[in-house]
């Protein structure tokens, strides 16, 4: 036997040659065999492999093209972004304006409804200013003596009693003392038990107290407090607030705190009741009861 193989490189070359020859045979066989689709296997395999290469190449090209396109697109994106941000800010401001307009329209609609529902003559007024003095809780409305407004006229809102006109009204403006002012008060009663008393503003939370109510009276938390009309200023039956706490007092009267129904921090439109104040009446029950309609 002749030993042809001897060194390691020779064996490696023989192995490589062996693999190459086998691959060559496979290619030769594939070239003669038809695949299921009638295409030569060699062609099918070649096309399949080459299509993979094409796919990979196309993916690489796409990445490059997209990357370049994104880069070019980004060049103008910053300026466009700034413009869009400004437009967005403008639109947000407009949207806020529209939203405020809608809210104001709703408030005016409520005011108009109240004006149509109530039996007393009223005139709509817009709050045009607050009070610069923090110790006095009052606002200024755009209706004055030219509109028939006089001192002590009641001021109401769709939710309930707001206050009364104080001081001498100007021709086109008047000052309204809010009911939560510590110097303000209104005749009131418990709607459920009809227990009478006087609501007065206090410098506390809640800012209203129902005073002069007997310890024997039936008053519980959650009761609705309405105007009784006996003070000659506020028409009877308008909502004032809700009893938050009712306790037996140390003397003759109960200690009752009332949460007002009107949000005094956001009064914009009100109705001024065009009925001049009259002397206080001892029979509050004789007054009208529009509270349900006002609600």
């Amino acid at each position, binding site marked *: *036997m*002749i*030993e*042809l*193989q001897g060194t390691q490189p*020779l*064996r490696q070359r*023989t192995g490589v*040659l*062996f693999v190459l*020859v*086998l691959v060559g*045979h*496979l290619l*030769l*066989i594939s070239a*003669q*065999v038809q695949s*299921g689709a009638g295409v030569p296997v060699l062609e099918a395999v070649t096309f399949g492999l080459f299509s993979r290469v094409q796919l990979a190449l196309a993916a690489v090209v796409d990445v490059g093209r997209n990357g370049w396109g994104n880069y070019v697109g980004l060049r103008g994106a910053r300026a466009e972004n700034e413009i869009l941000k400004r437009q967005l800010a403008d639109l947000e401001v407009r949207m806020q304006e529209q939203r405020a307009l809608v809210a104001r329209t709703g408030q005016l609609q409520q005011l108009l409804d109240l004006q149509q529902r109530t039996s007393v003559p009223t005139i709509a007024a817009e709050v045009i200013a607050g009070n610069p003095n923090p110790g006095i809780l009052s606002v200024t409305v755009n209706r004055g003596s030219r509109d028939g407004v006089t001192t002590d006229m009641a001021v109401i809102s769709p939710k309930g009693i707001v206050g009364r006109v104080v001081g001498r009204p100007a021709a086109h403006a008047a000052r309204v003392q809010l009911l939560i002012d510590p110097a303000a008060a209104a005749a009131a009663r418990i709607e459920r038990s009809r227990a009478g008393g006087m609501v007065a503003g206090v410098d506390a939370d809640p800012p209203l107290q129902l005073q002069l109510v007997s310890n024997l009276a039936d008053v519980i938390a959650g009761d609705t407090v309405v105007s009784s009309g006996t003070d000659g200023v506020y028409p009877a039956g308008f909502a004032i607030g809700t009893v938050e706490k009712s306790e037996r007092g140390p003397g003759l009267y109960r200690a009752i705190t009332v949460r007002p129904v009107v949000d005094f921090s956001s009064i914009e439109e009100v109705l001024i009741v065009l009925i001049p104040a009259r002397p206080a009446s001892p029979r509050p029950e004789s007054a009208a009861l529009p509270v349900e309609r006002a609600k």
Partner: protein
Amino acid sequence: MKVAGVIVALLVALALQSTIAGLRIGGTTAVNLVLVVVVYGALSFGAAGGLVIGTVGGLFQDALAGGIIGIGGFAKTLVGFLVGWLGAQFIVSQPLSRFVMFVAATILHEACTQALYAVVESRGFRLPYSVTLTQALVNALVGVVAFQFVERGPQVLARRRARSGSLGRRHF
């Protein structure tokens, strides 16, 4: 000289194989002379020689057979390389070891051929064991005899010549 002998043997084997193609057992020829030459060459010249002889012989046999060219070439290349590599790893100078090598090579060749046909024709793998074993035994027998003839034939001829020469000089 030996290479030329292998080439001649290969050509003779191809000619004889095509001549005795009618001798079949169960659809397969009872002997594969080309394969015998490939194994013989691989055992004689190693893996590289087996590789070349297997490739050439297989391709020629495929071409003559008229089927798919490459299947026989693949199988014989594989067999030639492996037999040559094994022949370099183990001592296969004895008739029995050569016989075993021929049998194993034939079975491997048939299995490889059937596997390739199964792939190409998209059918299941079928190996006719009895026919394959018969062909393996015949191939092994032919191969071992060929080895014996090639290795010991010249010596036998020389002895016979020497014997006939000495007898011729005797005078009774």
